[in-house]
């Protein structure tokens, strides 16, 4: 007997007991829906972390100045002004694991373009910074070497700033005044989105380091080449931990710190922090999916229960089918198809529930959810497998009935 005819018989049998079929399906619907929703919630958490890692730049560390102690009073971090441009150059030069170490000096100021203006963060840095952050220029160009060394009045604009000043127009080659100094925009950065702390990373404008120092923020006395922090990218395939240790060693040496003295700088291994977060969000999503799978399992047991009842109820029908020529295999197939149909229809409705559920969670709880095609396929595959697994025993029981006994069954 062909599969299509078997399917028709199965659908008819399920229609006969509509309420019972729907209730049995409900177990699978809730199970599949829960699995999809939970995977979406877990996936959302994971995607968020992954996105942060991506926007941060991979293998990234930052070095910030440490705290100072003044008369026994310890100031907060970055209170010392101990980092210099030369530290960054030395790290790039002497630590093999480091791909680039970009010095950054930071300030803020009003930017004026035509009749609009905007206050933003100004980074004075080198082209290495873009490399360290995996941050490409999408329009225009980066800084030329002579602009870096000659304190050229050029700027690369972040997308949020560009939007504030120029709307959707192309900012490249536009003139702006940064803290009243005229600059030419030479490029626009790619969009980065929010940082880990939720600040807008695109609300920034980059100028060459020397330009920032000489033309924008002035030169603090005696702090000729000081910088606010440096962003360091470690080469692929090298241990972040090793790189961190070597940088610390080098910096202590350069800053002439005695053994036992506190560091006058702090190294933050940002990627590692995020990777730990990612690992924990992975565990979370696995846990959520596992809990949801339990409900799918319970749904499967419901199918088995109903199929067993159905086989008992329809013993005479099975006997009759055998009398008119159904082989054991035909009977097995019929009940198996019935169970799988039940679980697959339940699975389809479960997908709808899961989609709705994850949308609702996104909407009302404000959690980010990420639906993947793979999780949908997985859930349906799982539902079908449950239909086969839990349908097999009742189906085999039916197919092993003896025709005369089944026909005589009351």
């Amino acid at each position, binding site marked *: *007997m*062909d599969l299509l*005819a078997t399917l028709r018989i199965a659908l*008819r049998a399920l229609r*006969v007991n509509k309420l019972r079929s729907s209730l049995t399906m409900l177990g699978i619907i809730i199970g599949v829906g829960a699995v999809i929703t939970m995977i979406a919630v877990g996936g959302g958490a994971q995607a968020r972390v992954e996105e942060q890692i991506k926007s941060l730049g991979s293998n990234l560390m930052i070095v910030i100045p440490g705290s100072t102690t003044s008369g026994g009073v310890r100031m907060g971090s970055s209170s010392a002004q101990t980092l210099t441009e030369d530290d960054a150059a030395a790290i790039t030069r002497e630590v093999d694991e480091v791909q680039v170490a970009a010095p950054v000096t930071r300030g803020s100021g009003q930017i004026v373009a035509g009749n609009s203006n905007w206050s933003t963060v100004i980074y004075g840095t080198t082209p290495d910074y873009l490399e360290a952050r995996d941050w490409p220029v999408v329009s225009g160009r980066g800084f030329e070497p002579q602009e870096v060394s000659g304190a050229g009045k050029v700027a690369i604009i972040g997308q949020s700033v560009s939007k504030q000043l120029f709307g959707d127009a192309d900012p490249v080659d536009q003139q702006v005044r940064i803290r009243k100094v005229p600059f030419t925009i030479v490029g626009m950065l790619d969009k980065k989105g929010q940082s880990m702390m939720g600040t807008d990373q695109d609300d920034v404008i980059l100028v060459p380091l020397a330009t920032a120092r000489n033309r924008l923020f002035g030169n603090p006395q005696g702090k000729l080449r000081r910088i606010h922090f440096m962003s360091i990218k470690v080469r692929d395939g090298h241990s972040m931990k090793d790189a961190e240790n070597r940088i610390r060693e080098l910096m202590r040496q350069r800053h002439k710190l005695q053994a036992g003295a506190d560091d006058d700088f702090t190294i933050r291994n940002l990627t590692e922090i995020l990777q730990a977060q990612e690992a924990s969000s992975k565990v979370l999503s696995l846990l959520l999916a596992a809990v949801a799978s339990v409900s799918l399992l319970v749904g499967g047991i419901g199918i088995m229960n109903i199929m067993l009842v159905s086989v008992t109820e329809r013993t*005479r*029908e099975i*006997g*009759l*089918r*055998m*009398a*008119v*020529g*159904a*082989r*054991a*295999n*035909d009977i097995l197939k019929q009940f198996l198809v019935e169970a799988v149909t039940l679980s697959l229809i339940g699975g389809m409705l479960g997908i709808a529930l899961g989609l709705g559920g994850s949308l609702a969670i996104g909407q009302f709880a404000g959690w980010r959810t990420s639906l993947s095609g793979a999780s949908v396929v997985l859930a349906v595959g799982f539902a079908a497998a449950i239909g086969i697994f839990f349908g097999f025993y009742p189906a085999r029981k039916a197919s092993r009935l*003896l*025709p*005369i006994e089944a*026909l005589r069954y009351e």
Partner: protein
Amino acid sequence: MAEALIQTTGLVKEYLVGEQTVAALCGVSVSIAEGEFVAVMGPSGSGKSTFMNLIGCLDSPTRGEYALAGEKVSALSGDALAAIRNKRIGFVFQQFNLLPRTSALDNVELPLLYGGVAAAERHARAKKRLEEVGLADRVDHHPAQLSGGQQQRVAIARALVNNPVLILADEPTGALDSRTSLEVMALLQKLNRGGMTVVIVTHEHDIAAFAQRNIHFRDGLVVQDHPVEKINDADAILAHAAASTAAA
């Protein structure tokens, strides 16, 4: 004489009840020729139902041999027996055994479904058989919408649909009133006149009288096997009844 359609030799069927072996049939040798109309009779426990199950290939004998149309079927496997039931034998049961909530047409198609016949041909053949049993206008009715006699006629159409060599009817009139019983017997007699071999099981003598030959069972053995001297003609009785109703 042509080769027998049904040939059993020393058929024995034993059941295990608890730790005791109970023999339902103790060596039955019967020969039924093609085109015969046989009624199998006997009290309950006589072995007549066991005999029916064996010649209907619903069960296998413990010992002895059974050949259907020259083919030795007593040693066949379950699936091979299913194929023989499907192609060679049409069953009619006391309780009709129609699938509930399923149209008459789909019920009649059932054997064809398991015989692997294509949908279009299934419909055509099932429809034709329903017309033959006088239910052309009831093809879409469910069993619950049909009278007992109509249901049994659907069952007979189902038995006929795969062109079997043998119709086996187990108490076909047991659940019917006397008038519809007559109608069903008339239908079976008509089929027999067309050359079909019919074997019925019954405990009613007046039903057995519609057959050409009666075989009596008792305690697992054939105790009597004789031709019916005065065969009842169901059509004639029906016509007579109709005439007397009209006269009154």
